[in-house]
């Protein structure tokens, strides 16, 4: 039913799109996403993927092509990263508002400036309220699995929203792992051919798509999207339950690790979750009652589930991989604080521009939580002391 192979996160993402039988690929290469574009091109040339590969001149065009292609009634595949995602910004809104359920791997990389090729979550966080579902993977296996789950959810008649499957640049995209790649027959059973439930491009049935919408209807169409999001948690959970029946692997909107009797819990997103769990194991060995709450779904934000999981926990921290300038705390911490009103929630920022969030970082963060050193401000937990003096004027 599946083959276990050594592939990295980009490989897993490519396999996910191949198994979903995308019929059009319009991707523009960008570090660290490029291997996805290249692998999909290989699949097309080798006849492993029956798709039209469109070589586009930018990410903006890549998303435009994907939207147009999918509106003709087929799955369209693309993937991007960082400033490429930022360049797509305008048309990401078109996909969301026109309810085109494209599933796109986003290889998380920092935004400029400073220029960087490496991992953090600023790119995806900049799009967090744009009407796309956002799932975050912890491992290469999760990348593949969440892509299939995302298709099932995004294309559901009740949802019809596009979805990003976020994987941390280099930490996941370029790190090889033993991944179960399911057989096509098993995926076909889980993920039926694409059915367009909404408007479509057809010369025999002409429609004017994305037309100027008067004030009298704009709010209503935005509300339609909100209704789609409201139904997303239940549909996601159903898709995950079905996934377990077919493939045996268990997913949920979040994963509570050692949270039951924990005195301090840190909320995580993406690849840092593995390090966090490892650190929890080490600290538990020293008798410290700590836990991790990994969010798999950030959009929709599983508020109810987060509330339940963290209700018995005395002190909560949130490790954000983006700065959230001008806000009290960074994006994930903002959401968690809103859910847990009245309880101390310490925002941490770490792992920007590819800086590793190591066990030492989590040890430091847990120590602050356990000693009750909670501050209203966000804690830049891995910033160096010479932050303001690293470039001397000569």
């Amino acid at each position, binding site marked *: 039913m599946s083959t276990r192979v050594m592939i990295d996160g980009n490989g897993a993402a490519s396999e996910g799109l191949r198994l979903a039988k995308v*019929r059009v690929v319009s991707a523009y290469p960008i570090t660290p996403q490029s291997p996805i574009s290249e692998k999909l091109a290989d699949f097309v040339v080798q006849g492993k993927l029956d798709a039209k590969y469109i070589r586009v001149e930018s990410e903006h065009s890549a998303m435009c092509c994907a939207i147009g292609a999918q509106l003709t*009634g087929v799955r369209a595949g693309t993937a991007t990263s960082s400033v490429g995602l930022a360049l797509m910004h305008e048309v990401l809104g078109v996909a969301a508002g*026109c309810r085109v359920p494209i599933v796109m791997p986003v290889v998380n990389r920092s935004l400029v400036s400073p220029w960087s090729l490496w991992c953090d979550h600023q790119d995806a966080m900049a799009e967090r309220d744009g009407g796309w579902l956002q799932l975050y993977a912890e491992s290469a296996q999760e990348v593949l699995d969440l892509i299939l789950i995302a298709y099932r959810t995004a294309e559901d008649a009740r949802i019809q929203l596009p979805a990003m499957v976020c994987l941390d640049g280099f930490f996941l995209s370029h790190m090889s792992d033993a991944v179960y790649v399911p057989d096509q027959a098993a995926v076909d059973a889980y993920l039926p051919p694409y059915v*367009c439930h909404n408007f479509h491009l057809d010369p025999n049935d002409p429609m004017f798509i*994305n*037309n100027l*919408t*008067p004030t009298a209807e704009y709010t209503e*169409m935005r509300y*339609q999207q909100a209704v789609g999001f409201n139904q997303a948690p239940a549909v996601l959970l159903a898709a995950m339950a079905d996934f377990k029946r077919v493939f045996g692997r268990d997913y949920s909107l979040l994963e509570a690790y050692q949270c039951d009797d924990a005195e301090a819990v840190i909320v995580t997103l993406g690849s840092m979750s593995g390090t966090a769990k490892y650190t929890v194991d080490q600290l538990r060995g020293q008798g410290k009652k700590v836990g991790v709450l990994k969010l798999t779904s950030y959009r929709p934000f599983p508020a109810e589930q987060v509330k339940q999981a963290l209700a018995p926990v005395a002190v909560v921290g949130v490790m954000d991989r983006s700065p959230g300038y001008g806000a009290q705390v960074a994006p994930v911490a903002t959401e968690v604080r809103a859910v847990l009103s009245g309880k101390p929630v310490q925002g941490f920022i770490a792992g920007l521009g590819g800086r590793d969030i190591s066990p030492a970082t989590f040890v430091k963060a847990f120590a602050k939580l356990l000693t009750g050193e909670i501050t209203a401000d966000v804690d830049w937990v891995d910033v160096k002391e010479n932050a303001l003096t690293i470039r001397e004027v000569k």
Partner: protein
Amino acid sequence: MQRQQKKPMTDCEKTKKYFVGPVATEFVAAKTGVWRVVRPDVTIEDCIFCGTCRKHCPADVVTVAKEDPNSGVYFDWDYCKGCGICANICPKQCIAMIPEEGVCKL
């Protein structure tokens, strides 16, 4: 490509009653009258049916009917944006701009 499209689209027509999001299945002009905040109101007793308002209307929505029994000044409310040029240009100053219900008046 055509064959792949056929089935999903047939299904789409059979199972769905409403589209979500911005789509026009009929091609009609947008009713710009919904932009209106104030509307022209003619004091017909003072009107001399000169047609100056009709000539100056940038949206060509004014009809001036001089003959009895239908004499009056009529506006196409679907497209009158309430710009007030008719009121400004009227030689008898018999057109007032009054607030739209639900916009200025609650």
